[in-house]
């Protein structure tokens, strides 16, 4: 019943960290690039939502 037993059976688990780092780096890069490419009008529309 030890928790460890459930996870021991996963093969190739060492790839997990690598996949995660790739996911993080790529998502983060895309977020930054896309964000800076956004037009001013759209941003202005959004940032005024609480004040409407």
């Amino acid at each position: 019943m030890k928790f460890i037993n459930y996870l021991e059976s996963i093969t190739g688990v060492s790839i997990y960290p690598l996949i995660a780092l790739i996911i993080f780096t790529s998502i983060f890069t895309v977020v930054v690039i896309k964000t800076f490419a956004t037009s001013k009008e759209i941003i202005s529309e959004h940032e005024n939502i609480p004040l409407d």
Partner: protein
Amino acid sequence: MSTNIERFAYDNKIVKQFAIATALWGAVGMLVGLIVALQLVYPALNFDFAPTTFGRLRPLHTNAVIFAFVGNGIFMGVYYSLQRLCKARMWSDRLSAIHFWGWQFIIVVAAVTLILGFTTGKEYAELEWPVDIMITLVWVIFGLNMFMTIIKRRERHLYVAIWFFIATWVTVAMLHIVNSFELPVSLLKSYSWYAGVQDALVQWWYGHNAVAFFLTTPYLGLMYYFVPKAANRPVYSYKLSIIHFWALIFLYIWAGPHHLLYTSLPDWAQSLGTVFSIMLLAPSWGGMINGLLTLRGAWDRVREDVVLKFMVVAVTAYGMATFEGPMLSLKNVNAISHFTDWTIAHVHVGALGWNGFLTFGMLYWLVPRMWKTTLHSKKLANWHFWIGTLGIVLYAVPMYWAGWRQNEMLTQFTEDGRLQYQFLDVVNGMQGFYALRSLGGLLFLVGAIFMIVNLWKTATQGSFQSNEETEAPALAKNYAIHGNEHWHRVIERKPVQMLVLALVAVAIGGIIEMIPTFLIKSNIPTIEAVVPYTPLELEGRDIYIREGCYTCHSQMVRPFRAETERYGEYSKAGEFVYDHPFQWGSKRTGPDLAREGSGNNKKSNSWHYNHMADPTSTSPASIMPRYPWLHTDVIDESMTPAKIRAMITLGVPYPEGYDQLAVEDMRKQAATIYDDLKLSESSLLLGENGLQPNQEIIALIAYLQKLGRDIEVSNTTKTAAK
């Protein structure tokens, strides 16, 4: 395109209810904090009464402030802002009411069970399993109500504040469920599913992210709503908020292991925690800068407007705490700060400054608006601001100083290479700092009472409107996309997609940190000499947990000369494999106890007996509470077989059928300690019936004498083999 204007009303009643709960529980939580602070100055304030001892009140303080004060503050702010940002009333008034009363019920049950000693012994997650289930249910109700409101909204796009609310909801759900895996033994007793190092990792993954996703992200969401509202101008950079949001939630989840530097946690996990903590500085400061620069061109108003004053200090405190956090996760800084009052200073800059002041700012902004009036007294509010700020300074500065001094004294060696100070010398040098800190806490509490009076008077002079009538165009069902749509707008329209993405972002960090630790056996080298607790030791350990000993004593010797000299060999991961839950602690108001039963630290049974009855009898000027009830209350033997069975289920290698023999074994071991105690000439006639072999103190002594003994046996065997 025809616009169909719809009339509806915002529900202000639920906001009012949460506002009242925030203010009242805030005062209670702060008052308990003041009491525990004073107990360290005047130990007599423990009253020799179990429910009022430090070990039970300290968890009550932390839980009250986090889940009752800040928790209600979150719900107050979310219920107000979400309705306006979605241009929709909360989906279900009934769910709102169940949420409110359910949460208040949980708080009351939590307070009662904690002071009665029902605790899981895991910091900020002390509540026992039935309360954990109640929390889950109420959290789901809150989530359902929130998501349905978002789905039924009249505003196409989800403003950044809502993303923070969504991330908060999903991550807190995940953290709470994973960390609360426990095996019930009875209605109010359970054992953590995890043991030792794994338990520590899960706990601090939870503990750190409770700070991140209960004290930070929801409040950042509230900052993104209330600061622009109070300043009457949009947030400084919406682009920054997008990057800040995704980076923050992705990075935060990895940083938990920085609470376990130099412990028995595998090195790679420690390094991972450090790296991500340093990276976290960027999005944290992104948020702070965004909050502060929202006031660009409005700084003149900060002088006049008390709401803005509170908010500016709150955001500044957030910036200070989130700069300090990454610094504290550097191993060389952590070596100094960990286990000292520096940590206490750090968390209070966050709790008093960031959470406290932002909550006060929100309350001062909300109450006059909801009661359709102006603030009763600006002067009193200004007094609150200054007295509260002074309170924070008077709290934090002595604690930083105390933390530094504790480290300096504890690591000081004489010329001939011996430790210069006893632990008690350090404790005795702390009284002034603790007294000043209490004064700081008192000022903060007095300020909060000023606020309660002020807001009460404001409310009585105004007239509350439960339903605030408004109107907005209905959301067109068929949304026409014009040209090249911005990528993030797609996500912003879809709350469920947002929820899934946020969950993916936060789950990755947790999975990567935890799976290898659970998976690879070599991460936790077993030590042959480490054997499971005897039934008596297990009962003693449960008493140790019940009395909250972990709030002042660690069980983790770090690999530093000053620590190995003082306590003995540094702690190994393999020593804790039977510890459900782990009891490493996070603060040393008293000395480490990992080697209490071995080496130079070992004391006689009668020393422990007298020490628990009156700590000053063995350690003059000790500030530890007395535990007289341990000398009269008897061990509940009826629970022992069930406890052994639970441990077997969790993988502790007791022989099959041992649960039936456990009580007999327990009595035998108790008899040996009893016989030994009888031989000593000390005052053994405490309590009505004098010394008895079935008293709780016997079990606790058995447990304390076990600490570090196995590793000593292991070393003796090795030496003999050579």
